[in-house]
């Protein structure tokens, strides 16, 4: 990402970098400033504004996206760190434009959002969490989501939504297996 002129000399930073990244199944190639945060890249370069920025220091979890399937905080990564990787954001979760993803559906049915600002981050975290824990108990849910802050809901309905989403995902999984 940066080149040294000669050994011993101070490092010369490249200002820009040609980034190649797959986001929600689409391949993007963009020349970007190397200091650009991944969250800013998604929001301002790709106009995927569903990823929200709540603290810019990696605590609130609003900016959570999936990087090669793993939940990460996009405000703590530089965009260049996602070079040649695959990202999923909230916009890429539901299959069709009409349908909600089972996690999104569960959030609506359990009234698990109010202002909605933290919601995309929660949903991406839940997505990664349920992949690891398809049948979680409440204690696991609480531990698994402790990295996302919500200031509106008091979390109770989020826990209920995660339980319901797990149920939805398990039943669609078993339907697939039967088929």
């Amino acid at each position: 990402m940066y080149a040294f002129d000669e050994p011993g000399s101070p490092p010369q930073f490249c200002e820009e970098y040609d980034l190649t990244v797959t986001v929600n199944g689409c391949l993007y190639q963009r020349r970007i400033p190397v200091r650009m945060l991944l969250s800013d890249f998604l929001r301002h370069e790709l106009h995927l504004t569903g990823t929200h920025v709540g603290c810019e220091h990696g605590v609130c979890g609003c900016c959570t996206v999936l990087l090669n399937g793993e939940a990460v905080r996009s405000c703590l990564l530089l965009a260049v760190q996602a070079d040649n990787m695959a990202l999923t954001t909230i916009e890429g979760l539901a299959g069709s434009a009409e349908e909600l993803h089972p996690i999104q559906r569960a959030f609506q049915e359990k009234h698990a959002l109010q202002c909605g600002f933290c919601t995309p981050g929660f949903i991406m975290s839940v997505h990664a969490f349920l992949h690891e824990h398809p049948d979680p108990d409440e204690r696991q849910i609480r531990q698994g989501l402790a990295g996302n802050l919500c200031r509106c809901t008091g979390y109770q309905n989020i826990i209920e939504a995660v339980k319901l989403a797990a149920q939805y995902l398990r039943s669609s999984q078993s339907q697939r297996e039967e088929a």
Partner: protein
Amino acid sequence: MATRWFGAPVQRSEDPRLLRGRGTYVDDIDLPEMLHAAVLRSPYAHARIKRIDVSAARALPGVHLVLTAEDLGELLEPSPLLVPHPALTQPRTQLPLARDEVHYAGAAVAFVVAEDRYLAEDALELIDVDYEPLPVVASLEQAAAEGAPLVHADVPGNVAAHLVQRVGDPEGVIASAPHVLRERFVMERGSAMPMEGRGVVARWDPHEGMLTCWISTQGPIPIRNGLAAMFRLPEHKVRVVAPDVGGGFGTKIMMFYPEEILTPLAALRLGRPVKWIEDRAEHFLAANQERGQIHDVEYAFDDQGILLAVRDVFLHDTGAYTPYGIIVPIITACTLPGPYRLRHYYSEFKVLYTNKVPVSPYRGAGRPHAVFVMERIMDRIATELGLDPLEVRSRNFIRPDEFPWDVGLVYQDGGPTIYDSGNYQAGLERLKEALGYEQFREEQRRAREQGRYLGIGVACYVEGTGIGPYEGAQVRVESDGRVYVSTGVTTQGQAHQTTFAQIVADQLGVDPRDVLVTTGDSQAFYWGVGTFASRAATVAGSAIHLAAVKVREKARQVAADLFEASPEDIELADGKVFVRDAPQRALTLGQVAIASNPLRYSYGENARKLMQMQLAGPRPGPALPEERGGPGLEATAFYSPPRGTFASGVHGAIVEVDPRTGMVTFLKYVAVHDCGRVINPLVVEGQVHGGVAQGIGGAFYERLVFNEEGQLLNGSFMDYLLPTVEEIPPLQVEHVETPSPLNPLGVKGAGEAGTIPVAALFASALDDALAPFGLRIREMPLDPCRLQQLLKEHQNT
């Protein structure tokens, strides 16, 4: 008309959009040619500005504008005082950019606009400010001390306001009472911390002569009016929109924050759209805070535990300015009597300046403090007399047949503090049962034998909600049969698009999904105040109801003319307008909407059908009879409440305390809540859940820590701890409904309630759990370290 949707747990119509990441928060607005702003903030809590050199910043390529105080011209005016009060003798509000002196760390000193935010922040680094530090007032105690430094050189004693209210003869009663106690209670600062910070996007359109601002605010219409005056534009040429707002909790009702003036100013000067987005670090330094008070209270009671008189003298920390007048301490004073028959009450407060972030209401707005004091008193009476704390509360409650109850004080809106309705004993009974109060003592005894410290706490409150002055709404049925509603209040998570639709749906006989609600756009509805003080459902909801009733009556009139029937025989249901007992004589609501607008050039299938009906006979008079009051199924209504409605509730919890670590775990939490008639139980319970979580934060985790230089020491989410899902216990919410007689819906506010009693409840439960140690909690918030420290200090004495 049978009520169907009001009271139903309707799923939110906001959700599908927000769940897909398709909300539009201010930072999501991206305009062509848009520039980005950043703010240079004072590193000192109190300093003289000797010199500012912006030349290097201005010279940085990509920088378009650098503003300091001297560049503001006639805009260099202190912000308006939002709520004046005769007792506020020394009001001070802030300038958009500091001139000569800064009064808190975080105050805006310069404003930079550049091609992108990264460059704008680079430019901030190049601004050279020469500060001369001045003595700092960092706490209430210090502000009140003899010979304290002055926050504002021309405000003696740092006293902004001084107010005394008196009911009955408190001194006389105290002098002759059998029991009199004195205590001091201390509340420290906290912060609302919505997940979305503040933000502004401003665009000047020279062709239309129109300034448009998207602001993450709770009050776009007052901001519209203010900006129009400042920039000398007609009000209708300034449009202020609060798009999706990521939480407010009071922080965003403030005006004017400097950035709300500077961003439109930059857009006007540069002729390009400008965006400023507050980051979290800035939010800690420059978004208003609340809670700091110190109460010295004297109270008298008799042998039966009846509270006879209270004398409460308190200090209120307003920070460096008084933008919101003295609303918060007035609310504290008026909330303190709570649900109790207090007939002798003296309340005195002083509002003091400190070199800290200004104070304006934050969810609860002075009420948690008052409830803390009163509920500590109730618990103490019980302890002193060896009575059950719930029994003491019952003995002091105002009874259901005593409403309306005049507390005898002047409320924040300038009117009398009169409780409209309530049933406090019913709430307490519900709580006792849900909490398992009677069984708990046995459980507690067994736990203590095992060395575990369990405690039970309760706290009651009465909350003034739904204050005026007014709100309004327009309801219109369009030719597609859908209903469009606009109102001046904003939404920052309260589900107004759903609950307001429910109100309309019942009146017009449609599905709430066919009612589309616009909030927070000054161009969609011209008049209004804003969403704060738990008032939107009560005040705007009532206006919407009144407008919907007018539209319904008009639809009946229009249909009656078409069917040659009497309006009394016309009904509205399932999207249709029909003659009672003759349902084949029916039109859709959309067709009636078309018929209400006598145009020749109507288009579409609905219109064709209708034409045939209208051509049936010769028209007797004008196409638009005068009594119709204009074309269209449209009506506007306003609602101005005679005074506030008073919601109430009681919370109870069982906690376990580990005296070695100071850690507290909630084992059970029950909230009994009375907000009058409930429009949507899902939404109300959600509000209570969120309020309780915020209250738990404010009781046990969230304390803003300032050092003696007035520097915030825990200005990040790593250090200022918002509760996570691991800290919030499962909550049980129970409803009591005592409808308000003051408004047509019978509703009371629900937004803030959850937060209000939590600190008091927490103290009550801790006292109970730690009874073997004899500790009494007199401060909020606590945290594990502080609790440990208190236990240690207590054991040493």
